[in-house]
């Protein structure tokens, strides 16, 4: 039970400070020249003793009652039940708790725009690694004050803009005596090199505009930093032989091999930045997003400390039927589970610090900071752990654990004085001490007037009892001895409380009796346990009284929280991958299966086997049999699941040679004509529900391609549709040859991009040829220079773009080239011939039927749309017999989707090869099985049902070339990822979960009405993965409005190829 009396004492002591002169001492420890003082110097002894408080030395270690002595900005001693030393200023802390000063582990700072032309600047505006967090105005007085208010004594200031943002610094949150100085005390400089995956808008023209572009820029810059030092040394060793490298401040800064601090927008980004840091062997830490719970198992394997915001995902709107209809299970689970984020991270054994950055509050008051921590604690986060995340752990992360993070001798005198427990709901942060200076946050509640007061005349005659409550005053006369009736209570009116003064009136008649009109004026001043009262009668008579405090009615709320029975730690729900509908608890188990009785389309030499059987073991095809062979086999069926597929058809898993499904953060890095350095496999998104929908159509492998916005686009990614993957890389097709997207024609000439886009080279097909030829020439020169440098052991700058192109020339990377017209197709054939490589595929290749003989000679094949045409001028001669004619001439032909929608029914696309041009049926199926596998260089693994290949197969209800047959089961690596039965189970589970969450949301809506008001603009509540602000939104909106008013759903509309139009623009990505 806390004692009101002692609190009041505290108040009295603190009150003295108010009257004192402002703190303007000069630090003896300051190494800076002393600024001239205006007037006589001010002396601050800097010697304090905080006496009698509960001291939390560090999370989990407490002294019930101790004295903390502070001298010269440092903790001199912490003594249990100690007496204050002589000379120290005493601060009574009875009933209060003293914590270590909190450390804000991530305080982003926006630096002023850098001078783009200054010598040493990187060519890219978003690479400013040489800058320091304090290059601008620092946190500023306002910023410091706001952080102090939360109990922070120290902050980690981090530049907050760009890809390479600059170097961070640890600063004190105290105030300086020199006006205008950026920060009072810089504790440590160059703590981290801050990095992010920030991008410009997709049409801003600034590289990078895509997430994969940002990653490529990081990769190139880290490589450059590594090279730069060696190049400078080489020059210094032999100036005549080695030119001095251009000044490059960022590279110098990064070359110091500091620890990288990556800011991330979501949990997938954490995995991405971990990969790139590991690629360069760099130490790193991560600033998270609060969404880590969505993929905790993979996050747990990231070997880095994390700073995590206490951001909670706000409740979705479900008030109306329409809103409930639109809200996804994923979105509701995000709301429900986001309070468990910190607990899950903690239980996964990660080194977590907290930050108050990235909250969704309106303004920057960060009101939800403690509220959200309490929610996390309620969800099972250990309270001590929460405190450690604000003290010891960030101290260690920032390398200042020798000086801060604990209340102990020799540490900086950074303290938080709290009335109550730091994480209690009803508590007040009284003071924050920083470097031995006290900053008052909130004074003790000015409720000293509350209580019962025995009023007496100045002479000491008792008169009665005055009862003062929060907003009420009442008086009762002292009872005369022998009185029969209890005297009546008189109530005060017009009460004005302005501590320590209090004024009110009593109706004179009530107080004195009949005959007296008007009101009697009362003015009182409280001073400790004494109150002096002056009264004024309507007739002007003034009288004085004295009152003494009587019964202590106390602070009835205090401690109630402690009395609560500790709630049990709630169960932690098992989450699925991905979170939400159709998610799995992990990848399905691998099974040995015999499928028999089916019509087996092998897409191999055995063609179609009626009443055939396929045995799958250990994730591979073990054998393909006809009925006789199966009968003659003596097979032990133990441990093998037998599927009777009588009447059904079995085919290899379908392969889509052109997909944009599941790519995060943009499918195009279209800001430059050549972006061979970007890699789709850096941004695989396993969360797209379209993977599941495609599995339901028998698709098992796709070629994820960069868009077609530039002549030389990014590197591809071949994945299997391993739905339920914990880490995106689990989807990757191991051992598949690297590929890259090229594009020709209207898209790269920007023909249909509007009148503004007329300046980027190339604007003609002539220019396209030139660009490609030029880059291959450069790549060849680069490769030669590399060989020479290696021979001479000279420093050599890796160029990620030219490296990828050199791989093409060396035959180690396959070009997948978006193309339409015969002239451009032939052009690339000639360039390839000249540089001596074989093209992977021509994509779309809608005039391939006009130059099939050249394609046959120079490319692995042509991957076409079955029947698209007429959506732009260069496809006006497109022909549905294109596939058939190329096939007749001997080109390996596939049909692709370039569409998440079409990718769900590729078997029907194959049937169009039969319809248009009469391709033989089993050959037609190969257009979506074996042929794309050949084109991608993965035919040794997939594409046909032949012994030794992967157990990727589909069971169909009937002829796979029939548009009325249904995919019933889809298997990959002997794991069943889709079946009609499991789909039904998913649907039931989704229904149950949705109903449960809607009830839960409605229930919280009732008792936590105010909760979302702190969560910002209601219209932005849906934005869970908030993308960067995008000036092109206006354009998008126009387009969106157009589509809507035309009765079209933007998600259904498409420009027709490569996702470079509306389809990709509207792809919501994370």
């Amino acid at each position: 039970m806390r004692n009101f009396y002692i609190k009041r004492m505290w108040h009295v002591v603190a009150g003295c400070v108010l009257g004192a002169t402002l703190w303007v001492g000069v630090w003896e420890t300051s190494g800076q020249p002393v600024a001239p003082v205006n007037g006589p110097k001010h002396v601050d002894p800097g010697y304090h003793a905080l006496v009698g408080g509960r001291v939390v030395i560090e999370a989990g270690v407490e002294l019930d009652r101790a004295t903390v002595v502070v001298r010269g900005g440092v903790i001199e001693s912490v003594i249990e039940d100690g007496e204050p030393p002589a000379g120290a200023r005493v601060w009574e802390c009875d009933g209060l708790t003293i914590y270590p000063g909190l450390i804000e582990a991530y305080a982003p700072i926006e630096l002023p725009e850098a001078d783009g032309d200054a010598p040493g600047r990187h060519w890219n505006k978003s690479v400013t690694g040489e800058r320091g967090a304090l290059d601008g105005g620092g946190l500023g007085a306002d910023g410091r004050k706001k952080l102090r208010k939360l109990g922070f004594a120290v902050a980690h200031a981090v530049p907050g803009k760009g890809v390479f943002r600059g170097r961070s610094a640890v600063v004190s949150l105290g105030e300086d005596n020199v006006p205008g100085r950026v920060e009072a005390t810089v504790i440590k400089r160059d703590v981290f090199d801050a990095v992010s995956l920030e991008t410009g808008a997709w049409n801003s023209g600034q590289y990078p505009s895509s997430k994969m572009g940002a990653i490529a820029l990081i990769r190139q810059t880290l490589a450059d930093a590594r090279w730069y030092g060696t190049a400078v040394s080489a020059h210094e060793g032999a100036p005549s032989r080695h030119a001095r490298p251009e000044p490059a401040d960022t590279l110098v800064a990064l070359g110091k091999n500091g620890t990288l601090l990556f800011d991330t927008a979501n949990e997938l980004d954490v995995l991405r930045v971990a990969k790139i840091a590991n690629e360069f062997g760099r130490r790193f830490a991560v600033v998270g997003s609060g969404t880590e719970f969505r993929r905790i198992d993979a996050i747990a394997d990231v070997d880095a400390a994390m700073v995590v915001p206490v951001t909670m995902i706000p409740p979705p709107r479900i008030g109306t039927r329409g809103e409930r209809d639109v809200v996804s299970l994923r979105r509701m689970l995000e709301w429900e589970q986001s309070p468990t984020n910190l607990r899950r991270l903690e239980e996964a054994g990660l080194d977590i610090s907290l930050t108050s950055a990235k909250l969704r509050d309106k303004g920057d008051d960060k009101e939800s900071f403690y509220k959200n921590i309490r929610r996390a604690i309620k969800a099972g986060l250990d309270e001590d752990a929460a405190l450690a995340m604000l003290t010891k752990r960030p101290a260690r992360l920032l390398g200042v654990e020798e000086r801060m993070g604990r209340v102990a001798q020799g540490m900086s005198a950074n303290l938080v004085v709290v009335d109550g427990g730091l994480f209690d709901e009803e508590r007040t942060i009284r003071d924050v001490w920083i470097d031995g200076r006290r900053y008052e946050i909130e004074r003790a509640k000015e409720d000293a007037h509350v209580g019962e007061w025995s009023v007496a005349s100045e002479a000491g005659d008792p008169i009665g009892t005055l009862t003062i409550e929060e907003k009420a005053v009442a008086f009762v006369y002292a009872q005369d001895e022998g009185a029969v009736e209890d005297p009546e209570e008189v109530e005060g009116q017009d009460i004005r409380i302005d501590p320590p003064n209090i004024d009110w009136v009593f109706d004179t008649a009530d107080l004195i009796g009949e005959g007296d009109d008007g009101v009697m004026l009362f003015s009182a001043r409280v001073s400790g346990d004494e109150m002096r009262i002056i009264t004024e009668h309507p007739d002007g008579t003034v009288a004085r009284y004295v009152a003494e405090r009587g019964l202590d009615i106390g602070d009835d709320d205090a401690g109630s929280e402690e009395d609560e029975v500790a709630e049990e730690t709630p169960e932690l729900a098992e989450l699925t991958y991905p979170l939400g509908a159709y998610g799995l608890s992990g990848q399905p188990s691998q099974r040995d299966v015999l499928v028999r009785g089916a019509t087996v389309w092998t897409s191999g030499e055995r063609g179609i086997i009626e009443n055939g059987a396929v045995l799958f073991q250990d994730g591979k095809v073990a054998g393909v049999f006809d009925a006789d062979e199966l009968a003659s086999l003596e097979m032990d069926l133990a441990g093998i699941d037998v599927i009777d597929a009588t009447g059904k058809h079995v085919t290899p898993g379908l392969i889509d040679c052109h997909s944009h499904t599941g790519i995060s953060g943009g499918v195009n890095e279209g800001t430059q004509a050549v972006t061979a350095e970007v890699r789709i496999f850096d941004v695989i998104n396993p969360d797209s529900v379209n993977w599941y929908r495609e599995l339901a159509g028998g698709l098992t492998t796709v070629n994820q391609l960069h868009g077609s916005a530039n002549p030389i686009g990014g590197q591809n990614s071949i994945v299997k549709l391993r739905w339920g993957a914990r880490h995106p890389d689990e989807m990757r097709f191991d051992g598949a040859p690297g590929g890259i997207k090229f594009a020709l024609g209207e898209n790269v000439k920007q023909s249909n991009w509007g009148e503004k886009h007329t300046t980027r080279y190339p604007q003609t097909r002539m220019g396209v040829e030139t660009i490609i030829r030029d880059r291959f020439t450069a790549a060849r020169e680069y490769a030669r220079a590399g060989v020479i440098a290696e021979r001479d052991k000279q420093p050599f700058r890796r160029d990620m773009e030219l490296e990828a192109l050199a791989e093409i020339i060396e035959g180690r990377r396959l070009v997948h080239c978006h193309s339409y017209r015969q002239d451009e197709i032939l052009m690339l054939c000639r360039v390839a011939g000249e540089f001596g490589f074989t093209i992977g595929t021509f994509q779309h290749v809608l005039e391939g039927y006009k130059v099939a003989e050249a394609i046959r000679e120079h490319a692995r094949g042509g991957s076409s749309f079955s029947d698209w045409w007429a959506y732009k001028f260069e496809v006006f001669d497109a022909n549905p017999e294109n596939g058939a004619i190329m096939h007749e001439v001997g080109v390996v032909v596939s049909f692709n989707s370039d569409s998440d929608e079409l990718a769900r029914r590729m078997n029907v696309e194959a049937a169009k090869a039969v319809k248009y041009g009469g391709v033989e049926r089993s050959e037609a199926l190969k257009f979506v099985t074996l042929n794309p596998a050949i084109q991608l260089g993965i035919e040794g693994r997939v594409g046909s049902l032949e012994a030794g290949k992967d157990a990727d197969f589909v069971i169909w209800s009937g002829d796979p070339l029939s548009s009325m047959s249904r995919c019933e089961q889809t298997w990959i690596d002997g794991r069943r990822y889709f079946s009609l039965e499991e789909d039904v189970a998913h649907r039931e589970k989704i229904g149950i979960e949705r109903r449960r969450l809607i009830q839960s949301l409605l229930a919280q809506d009732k008792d936590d009405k105010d909760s979302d008001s702190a969560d910002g603009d209601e219209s932005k509540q849906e934005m869970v993965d908030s993308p960067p602000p995008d000036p092109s939104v206006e354009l998008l909106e126009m387009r969106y409005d157009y589509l809507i008013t035309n009765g079209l759903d933007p998600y259904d509309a498409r420009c027709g190829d490569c996702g470079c139009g509306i389809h990709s623009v509207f792809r919501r990505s994370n």
Partner: protein
Amino acid sequence: MRMTLNILMLFFVAAPALAQDLTVKAPAQDKPLTIIGGTVHTVSGGTIEDGTVVVADGIILFVGETDAARDFVKSMEGVDEWTVVDAAGRHVYPGLIGANTVMGLIEIGAVRATRDYAEVGSITPEVRAAVSVNPDSTVIPVTRLNGVLTCGVFPAGGSIPGRAGVIRMDGWTWEDLSIDGAAGLIVNWPNMRVSGRWWSTKSFDEQRKEIEKNIRAIDEAFDLAGAYLDAKGADDSLPVDLRWEAMRDALRDGGRVFVRAQELDQIEAVIAWGMKRELDIVIVGGRDAPLAATLLAQHGVGVIYTGTHRMPKRRDSDYDVIYSGPAALEAAGVSWCLATTGGSFQTPHERNLPYHAASAVRHGLAHDAAVRAITLGAAEMLGVDDRLGSIEAGKSATLIVTDGSPLEVTTTVELALIDGRVIDLSSKQTVLAEKYREKYRQLGLIED
């Protein structure tokens, strides 16, 4: 009676001399034609295994069993010459109807000069599709190849984009093409859902206001048109306003109003709006129509379900929620038809209409119901079911002869009749394919 028989060959041969829009239009039917011995899918009257269809002057005179047909033919007086189609082993279906297209109003989507489907302004009821359909569009012959012989043509853009037309897919002029030049007024119902999606910069309140404003704009157009028609009725000297005259049919004569609406809120709002204004409403779009099926059936509001080849809108949706929409509408007794998604990208691919129907069959719709949805059902929605959509005596002889179900991709349309005229099934595409096969023959890369 002396009879000359011209036996029409049923093998598809491209005509090398005819390229793209250079395809010659079919002449009017000059002599009677019988299609003998095929499986006749009448749509309205069941399937006749050994059936025969007799056609003269563009009209179906008889449909029935082949035996009965012989008697019917004998009864026809004064016929000298016959064209006979031996349809043994073949199937006869009504011509397919693409209910939701911009056929003839678009040539190349990305080329502005070829786009004629959206007039400037939000309220433009006065414009009608029929007058700007290009009869020489290359898209038309390509589309016919898969049996789509009739199309609904819908202007787009704004709130009231104009009036729809129904065209036949062959003719020398737009007048020849036009079956119904004023099939109905089109209304684009505003999006009714506020969106917190990232592209939206407007707050929920702003969006709500905008939704209200957009709905009010439509209401106001109808109010103004009504007031004008009243005034004009009372005093004919009132100057003519072409906008409101264009709405006379819908407001005064029970003409059809096609309202584009996809989402549940929109559909429900449209039904209520149509009842209040006593309009003959057909919903175009109808993605969420299965959710409103009871209401639609109860009020007899028809639906043009614009395609099964669309993505589910909601992350939690059944993967086949769009595919199975038609089966749900059919089961609920809604009067409906199936179309494609429409628009400038889709129209050149209108030939895939039957495969939208096939996807519905794959997910629960009966095959014959799916055929009806792209023939008679579509004719009903477009208001031309008195002439088209089924094989019945008295209706237009617009039909196809195939080697299988038209819903099956591998099926070939071997003969197409529009009003009894035998339609050339070559197109720019068939000619180009033949041209380049010739190249490879010259190079010795393929055999003849």
